C-alpha cells in the first residue's frame, strides 16, 4: 500500500516537473508549429539569470525568479523580431537547423558568462522544508511545483479557449492569410505567443531546477525529454502534453521503484509503443 502511495505521489510530482519544463515548448512547437529546439535555451537563460540575480546580486528568490522570467522575455522578443519571424516560414529541416544553431549560441554565451559548473538557484526556506504527508514526507517545493503546474494548465486553458486572444491565435495558426484578411494582426499575435512560450520555458527552468539543475549544457541534456512530452502529448494540444507528462512521470517512477535497473528502458519502451500506436500523440490533431 505504501509502495503504491509512494509511486503515486512521486510520479505526480515528477510528471508535473516534466510538464513544467515542456509546457513552453508545447506552446511554441505545439501551437505555433515552429520546431523550436532552442526551447531549452530559453529555460537555460531563465535559470542562469535566476542564479545570477539570487546568488551574485543577492535578491530574494521570488524577485529573482520574476526578474529572470522578465529578462528571458526581454531577450526572446528581439529574437522573435529578427530571427524567428524568418524561421516560421522555413521547412521543417531548416527550422531544426536554425534553432539548434541558436541553442549552441545560447550554450556558448552562458558558458562564457557563468562557466560550465552547476548554477544553483537557492530556494526560500519555506520551499525547502519537508512536508509531512502522514505516511512519509515530501519536500515543499514538489508540492509548489504541482500547484504551479495546475495553475499554468488552468491559465493556458482560459487564455486559449475563453479569450479573444485565444481565438485569434488559433485562427492565425490554422490559416494565417485568412486570419490576416479578417484584420487580425498576426505578427503581433505570434510575437506575444512566442514571448509566452519563452516565459513558460524560463518558469519551467527555474522551478524544475530542483530536479533538473541548470548548467550551460542544460538545453542539450534535456532536449529529448522536452520533445518526448510534446510528441507523446500530441502537437497542438496543451492538455495532451499535460496528460503525457503525468503519465510518463508515473510510469517511470513506478519502474524506478519496481525494477530500478530497467527504469530507463521501460520509459523509452513505452514511449516507442505509444508513438507506434498513435503517431499523432495522445490528443494530437492530425
Amino acid at each position, binding site marked *: 500500500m*505504501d509502495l503504491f502511495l509512494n509511486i503515486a505521489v512521486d510520479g505526480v510530482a515528477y510528471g508535473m516537473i516534466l510538464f513544467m519544463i515542456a509546457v513552453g515548448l508545447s506552446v511554441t512547437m505545439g501551437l505555433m508549429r515552429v520546431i523550436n529546439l532552442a526551447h531549452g535555451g530559453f529555460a537555460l537563460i531563465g535559470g542562469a539569470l535566476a542564479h545570477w540575480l539570487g546568488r551574485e546580486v543577492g535578491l530574494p528568490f521570488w524577485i529573482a525568479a520574476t526578474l529572470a522570467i522578465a529578462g528571458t522575455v526581454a531577450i526572446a522578443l528581439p529574437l522573435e523580431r529578427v530571427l524567428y519571424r524568418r524561421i516560421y516560414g522555413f521547412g521543417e529541416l531548416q527550422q531544426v537547423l536554425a534553432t539548434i544553431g541558436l541553442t549552441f549560441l545560447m550554450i556558448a554565451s552562458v558558458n562564457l558568462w557563468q562557466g*560550465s559548473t*552547476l*548554477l544553483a538557484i537557492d530556494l526560500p526556506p519555506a520551499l525547502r522544508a519537508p512536508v509531512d504527508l502522514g505516511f*512519509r*514526507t515530501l519536500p515543499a517545493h514538489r508540492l509548489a511545483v504541482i500547484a504551479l503546474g495546475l495553475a499554468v494548465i488552468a491559465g493556458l486553458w482560459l487564455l486559449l479557449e475563453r479569450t479573444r486572444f485565444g481565438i485569434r491565435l488559433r485562427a492565425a495558426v490554422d490559416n494565417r492569410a485568412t486570419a490576416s484578411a479578417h484584420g487580425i494582426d498576426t505578427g503581433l499575435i505570434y510575437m506575444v505567443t512566442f514571448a509566452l512560450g519563452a516565459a513558460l520555458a524560463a518558469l519551467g527552468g527555474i522551478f524544475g531546477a530542483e530536479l*533538473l*539543475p541548470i548548467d550551460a549544457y542544460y538545453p542539450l541534456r534535456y532536449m529529448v*525529454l522536452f520533445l518526448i512530452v510534446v510528441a507523446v502529448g500530441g502537437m497542438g494540444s496543451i492538455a495532451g502534453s499535460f496528460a503525457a507528462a503525468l503519465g510518463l512521470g508515473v510510469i517511470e517512477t513506478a519502474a524506478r521503484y519496481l525494477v530500478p535497473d530497467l*527504469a530507463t528502458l521501460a520509459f523509452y519502451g513505452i514511449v516507442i509503443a505509444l508513438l507506434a500506436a498513435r503517431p499523432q500523440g495522445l490528443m494530437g490533431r492530425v
Partner: protein
Amino acid sequence: MKIKGTLALGAAVSALAFSTAHADTIRVGVIAPFSGPFALYGTQYQQAIETYQAQHGTSVGEHEIEFVFKDVGGPNPDQARALAQELLIREKVDYLAGFTFTPNALAVAPLIEQSQTPTVIFNAATSSINRESEFFLRTSYTLWQVSEPLADWAYDQGIRTAITTVADYGPGIDAENAFRAAFEEKGGEVMDSIRMPLSTTDFTPFLQSVRDAAPDAVFAFLPGGPPTFTYTKTYNENGLRDAGIRFLGTAETEESNLQALGDQAIGLTTAYHYSEAHDTDANREFLAALREDHPDAVANWAMVGAYDGVHLIYHMVEAAGSDGPAAVESALGLEWESPRGPLTMDPETRTVVQNVYIREVERNAETGMLENAEKGMIATVGDLGWDR
C-alpha cells in the same frame, strides 16, 4: 585560401626555426577535453601545468620542456587515438599526458607500447588501464583505492548495514564491487545494491526505497554535476539524513561542484585523496602559486592529479631525457611530497600509493565557503583493485 596558405607557411617556418633553436626541447602532448561539457578538466590541467612551471621553471637539467595541448572533447576513444598518433608522429612528442576518461586512455595503449612513450594519466581511474601498457603511469587514484578504505572505516564506526546506490556504468559498478567486497569482508551486510540508470533525473524512488529499508548508511557513486546535485538534495529532502542514514561517497563533494551543492552538502562523508582544505605547507604553497595567476581557480583532484603528473614528468626528463623505457624505470618507486600528502609511485601497479582521507563537508567559519574537512586518514593505500 590565401590566409590558410600564409598560416601554413608561418607554421612551417616557425617549426623550422624552433627545431634549430632548441634542439634539446622535450615535448609533452596533453590529450584532454578543452571544449564541451567537460572543458573544465582541460582548463584545470592547463592551470596546474602553468602553476608548476611558474614555480619550477620551464627547463630541467639541460632540457627545455614544452607542452602541446590537444582537445579530445569528451569520452571519445577514436579521437584520443587519432590525437595521440598526430602528437607522436607529427609533433614528435616524447611524453603523453592527460586522459580524463578510461576509454580514451585504453585507446592509446597500443600506440605508446609501440613508440615506448611514457604516458602519465592525470585522471582516468579504472584499475585495469595500467595492465594494458608498461608505459602508463597514473598520478590520480583508482576507484578501489578510495572505496575499500571507506567501507573499512564505516564498519569501524559501527555501521553494520548499508545499501549501495551507484550510477549504472563502468566506474559505478567498480565502486559498488569495491565497497561491497570490503564491507562484507569486515562482517557488514550490504542489504541491497541499486544500480541507477545514467540518465536518471529523479532519484526520489531509489532513495525512498533506501529510506524504507533503513540501513545504517547509503553508499553512493555518481558522475559529477547534475546527478550529484539532485541526489544529495533528495537525500536531505526525503529525510534520509534525519532518519540517521549516513551518506558515504567518494568524489561526490569534489571542489568544483561543492559550492553549488549548498547547505545540503553539509555533513556528507566521503573518502578521497585530495581536499583543497588539506592542512599542509605543501598544499598552501600550491594554492598560493595557483591563485597568483588564476585568482578564481578551484583546486580539486583533477588539478592536483595534473600537478603531480607534471612533477613526475619533470623527474623523468631529468633522469632520462627522451629515453622512454629508462624514464619509466626512473619513475618507479619515486617518492615525493605532493599538495595532497606523501606519494610513492608503486613499481608494480604504476599508480601512486597515497593517503586516503575521511572527510566531512563543513562551512568554513572564516571564508563562509563549503570545504571537505579532513576527519581521519588511512595511510598509504595502493591500487587495491590491481588484483581483482
